[in-house]
């Protein structure tokens, strides 16, 4: 491999590192299906700062697997090779409901300021677009201790009619999984959910945390992104941390690890062509 590739990381690799940094050691963490960025982040975390992580792979429910490579579908024997043991589907969700799952990762085609997500359907009055659905996200967003929200498509697009389509929206057409406030404005503590809700939104533009009111707040941006860019691509107003920082970048060893585990570059499928071309110097 050439010098350049050694000296830089891609946006995808940088995002994987941002997600990995949200994962504590010694907890049970679970990823759903169709989330290669998260799968790689979990393996990276376990390989680096979280060796005691109980990594439960989505779909196979294999515990601490060591897959030879990443596949485009999650319920594949490739993905649970070397698993220490397996859980039943009900066992994983019981662990979450009893407060024993420390972190889960959720995404959405709509993400609002409180971290509510929609992956069920678009259209208020009538159904305009049926989305695949949220799997267990609805239950886990209530039960799991912490949630990392991520998306590789923060950047707003323009639809055929010339309207800007936001991923981070003013409000969700349907609430598939809950953040810090319900549609009726009730807080998590009022709802007496077991979990504490999302504490990060990792996107290809930056990273949000949540302020005391449960509102998304910009905490960091990528080296090639400024706050204005984040604002014009976000469907709601948001506060910015005084100590706004540039996202930390992975070490070359981490990048090597990611590339070795994902030779098919499955994780890039979460990113648009333009985003895939972004590179950051590790120098």
């Amino acid at each position: 491999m050439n010098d350049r590739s050694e000296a830089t990381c891609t946006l995808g690799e940088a995002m994987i590192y941002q997600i990995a940094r949200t994962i504590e050691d010694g907890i049970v963490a679970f990823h759903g299906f169709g989330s290669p960025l998260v799968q790689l982040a979990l393996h990276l975390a376990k390989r680096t700062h979280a060796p005691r992580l109980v990594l439960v792979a989505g779909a196979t429910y294999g515990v601490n697997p060591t897959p030879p490579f990443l596949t485009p579908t999650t319920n594949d024997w490739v993905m649970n090779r070397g698993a220490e043991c397996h859980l039943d589907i009900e066992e994983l969700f019981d662990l979450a409901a009893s407060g024993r799952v420390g972190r889960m990762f959720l995404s959405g085609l709509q993400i609002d300021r409180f971290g509510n997500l929609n992956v069920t359907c678009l259209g208020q009055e009538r159904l305009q677009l049926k989305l695949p659905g949220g799997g267990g996200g609805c239950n886990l967003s209530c039960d799991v201790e912490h949630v990392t929200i991520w998306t590789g498509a923060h950047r707003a697009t323009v639809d055929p009619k010339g309207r800007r389509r936001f991923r981070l929206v003013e409000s969700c057409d349907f609430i598939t999984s809950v953040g810090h406030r319900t549609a009726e404005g009730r807080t998590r503590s009022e709802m007496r959910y077991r979990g504490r809700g999302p504490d990060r939104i990792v996107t290809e533009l930056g990273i949000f945390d949540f302020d005391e009111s449960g509102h998304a707040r910009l905490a960091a941006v990528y080296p090639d992104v400024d706050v204005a860019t984040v604002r014009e691509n976000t469907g709601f107003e948001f506060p910015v941390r005084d100590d706004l920082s540039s996202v930390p970048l992975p070490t070359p060893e981490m990048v090597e690890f990611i590339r070795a585990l994902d030779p098919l570059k499955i994780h890039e499928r979460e990113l648009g062509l333009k985003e895939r071309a972004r590179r950051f110097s590790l120098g």
Partner: protein
Amino acid sequence: MNPAVHTQADKRCELAELVAHVREGDCIAIGGGLSWREPMAALRELVRQRIGKLRLVGSAHGIDVDLLCGAGLVAESAESYVGFEQDFGMAPNYRRACESGAVEVRDSCCYTLVQQLRAAIAGLPFMPIRSVRGTGFMALHPEYKTMICPFTGEELVLVPALRPDVAILHAQYGDARGNLCIEGPPVADILFARASKKVIATVEKLVPPEELAEKGVTIPYFYVTALAEVPYGAHPTACYPFHAYDRRHTAEYYRLASEGAEGFHDGYLQPYAYGCASQAEYLEAIGGAAVLERLACWQESPDAWMKLYE
């Protein structure tokens, strides 16, 4: 009233007979998940027999539900996910059917489904669950009720027992009595088998009872109504250790499904479902021995395995 136990000595039958246990309008639980161990041969037989108005319940699914939607057999979907993940994306036939109103959208969530099945398994009218409140699913499911917990004072959701009419499963091994052995992730198959009124299964291989007991019984025979030996009955989804996921065929499926209802009917349903009187004919249609050998090569090496996803 009380669910039956199935104790006939020999439950083996032909695929057509097996699938005839499904009635129009039935609530169906499809085993497997995503690209793993879907009972595709049984579903194609459903398509051939045109048994429709089906109400589907399940967790994370893909081509199985999309196929039934493409064939116009689905009236209602309470799955938690239907799609092709990062592999191909949204499910074309499923989307069309939902957006046209042909399929009533009753999306559910994995744990909600688990709790509803557990209620049926334990003969209870409902199971409590702490989540779901505050999401759009409460409005989508007016049948859910809430209660104030007499122990803690907190609000709980009560989800009613869910007893599917038929669970359709594909397992690696079975015996004539109906014992089933599933290797690898059972997904929700065990819950479906215990909760459903009828369980019909296709298996890669029928083996003698002693051999099955040796491998280990995943689903005891008395839950199982009937079974048929249908090698490659999960194709194009994977049924390890016998064969891997057929991504090439799935890509073709996706391309045709994306062309619209007609394109899918003429390009896929005709040649692969209506046009195949038997599983043998289907296996020829998808490329015969050459393809099957390719899908069996996953065990040779990680590289050989990886090539199947390129």
